[in-house]
């Protein structure tokens, strides 16, 4: 029961972090700062959501796959942020 409450709390924290990222995407004035807000909030918020899912299952295969999802999301977030900023600065 304690794990369940903790898991739901983690998911709420994650959702609020993701929401903070998207509010930053709406409110900030400049493309680069918007990119910054988006990629930073994704990492932490998504991490909390994955943590919540890990707490709610007890299969090893699910844990591995969930960790892989998190790893993929953060590495792609970094890579795409870098690629978009670099290309925009050079060509656009």
């Amino acid at each position, binding site marked *: 029961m304690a794990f369940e409450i903790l898991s739901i709390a983690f998911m709420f924290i994650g959702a609020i972090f993701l929401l903070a990222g998207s509010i930053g*995407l709406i409110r900030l004035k400049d493309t680069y700062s918007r990119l910054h807000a988006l990629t930073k909030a994704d990492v932490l918020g998504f991490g909390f959501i994955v943590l919540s899912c890990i707490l709610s*299952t007890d299969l090893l295969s699910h844990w591995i796959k969930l960790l892989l999802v998190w790893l993929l999301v953060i590495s792609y977030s970094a890579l795409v942020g870098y690629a978009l900023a670099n*290309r925009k600065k050079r060509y656009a």
Partner: protein
Amino acid sequence: MMDFVYGLLLFLLMLNLLLGLVRVFRGPELVDSMMASLLLGTGGTALLLAFFKITKEAYYINLALGFALLAGVVGVAFAIIILGKSKDGI
């Protein structure tokens, strides 16, 4: 009680997607639109994981994994194909 909590959670995640859609619509430049669609990719993955938490069906994790992978590939491809210059030959 549980229904209300999960409803609030899904509402927050949907709000996330909706705000992304607003930025895609308003985005003055193309890069902003693509960024917001990236946000939709992450938000969609988060929504799938929330479904996994609610229903405990294992296939949602595979869906989330595929979603995350391909959203990233599309983002990188956008940056290289649309924003970059074209050259001949690999």
